[in-house]
């Protein structure tokens, strides 16, 4: 590990200043991904600015609109087990509990979860080329080991996936990220925070250098009787990343879907809102035949790589089975 300086920020202004003053500085949350990447030499920050002790950043508060404002330093476990989250946003609890292990969730923060990097084996191996780590060096995953890579929205420069479970649930809940920079604050919707790789896979998100995630805000659930579910398919039952996952938020008016939101994980460089599938289903009844058509409409855009076409069928089946179960 390259030697680095450590500073604990006590307020947002000093955190932002610390990062602006040292171009090689990085914010440190729980460190469950960043520190691993430092050990591998993938990340080599000169300064770590710890933002886990910022005032109020570890709180979950009710908003006036009836939603929740989740501080960026709230741990993944604290968020998952919060009774308000479990009752009103069970899809978020479920997604969090499907991620990592108990120990990691105790350390990992909400802000850090959003900003974790891809687990692509070429990205994490500094002896290999990688356009995300070293722009212009090439993407060995295109023709190499890519069985767990993207099938949607990828480019010839990068076929990596975003590994977060939480972000997939937040995409279905249409959460908003609060961001603070030296020039002021702004909000960014999810989806919208994470970008597709295009020709610049080095940028995972639309954040500007030095901007800090301060909170994630949830609107009230779209309907009192909203049905929610997170399902994740992985190579073993626990402590593994998704091959494909799905987050669904569904409100039924009689037997019709008055509100439907579907987000997929493990298939793209960002949480993937299945808007084509949603459009096919919105306002109509939920039947297996209509679900199959909706999933087909979404997955038509898929461009699987040599060894991951199984994900197309998996995503299709996951959409159908999860919604059938949820609407029953």
């Amino acid at each position, binding site marked *: 590990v390259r030697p680095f300086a450590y500073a604990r920020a006590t307020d947002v202004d000093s955190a932002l200043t610390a990062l602006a003053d040292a171009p090689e500085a990085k914010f440190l949350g729980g460190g469950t991904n960043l520190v691993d990447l430092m050990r591998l030499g993938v990340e080599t920050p000169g300064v770590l600015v710890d933002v886990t002790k910022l005032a109020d950043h570890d709180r979950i508060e009710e908003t006036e609109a009836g939603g929740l404002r989740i501080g960026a330093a709230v741990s993944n*476990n604290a968020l*998952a*087990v919060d*009774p308000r989250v*479990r*009752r009103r946003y*069970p899809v978020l*609890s*479920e997604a969090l*509990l*499907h991620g*990592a*292990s*108990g*120990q*990691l969730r105790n350390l990992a923060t909400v802000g850090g979860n959003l900003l974790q990097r891809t687990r692509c084996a070429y990205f994490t191996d500094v002896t290999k080329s990688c356009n995300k780590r070293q722009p212009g060096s090439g993407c060995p995953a295109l023709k190499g080991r890519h069985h767990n890579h993207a099938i949607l929205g990828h480019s010839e420069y990068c076929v990596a996936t975003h590994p977060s479970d939480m972000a997939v649930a937040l995409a279905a809940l249409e959460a908003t990220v609060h961001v603070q920079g030296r020039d002021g604050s702004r909000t960014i919707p999810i989806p919208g925070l994470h970008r597709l790789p295009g020709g610049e896979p080095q940028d995972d998100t639309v954040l500007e250098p030095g901007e800090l995630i301060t909170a994630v805000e949830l609107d009230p659930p779209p309907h009192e009787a909203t049905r929610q579910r997170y399902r*994740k398919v992985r190579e073993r*039952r*626990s*402590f593994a990343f998704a091959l494909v996952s799905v987050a669904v938020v569904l409100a039924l008016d009689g037997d019709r879907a008055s509100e439907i939101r579907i987000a997929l994980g493990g298939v793209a460089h960002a949480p993937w809102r299945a808007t084509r599938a949603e459009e096919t289903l919105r306002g109509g009844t939920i039947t297996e035949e209509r679900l199959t058509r909706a999933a087909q409409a979404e997955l038509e855009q898929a461009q699987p790589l040599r060894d991951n076409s199984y994900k197309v069928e998996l995503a299709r089946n996951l959409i159908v089975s999860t919604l059938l179960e949820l609407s029953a």
Partner: protein
Amino acid sequence: MLGEVGAGWPSHATADVRADEIELEAPEIRERMSGNICRCGAYANIVTAIEEVSA
């Protein structure tokens, strides 16, 4: 682990995360051992031991 179960913390093996009480059945125990204790076949008896202690 038993403290978390007592406090009503769900896991991904919990059928309904909205429930206030967790039933500590074998799938719950196995999931909660994940990251703590090896879950390979040789350790199957640990599940039984935890069941016994928690009863």
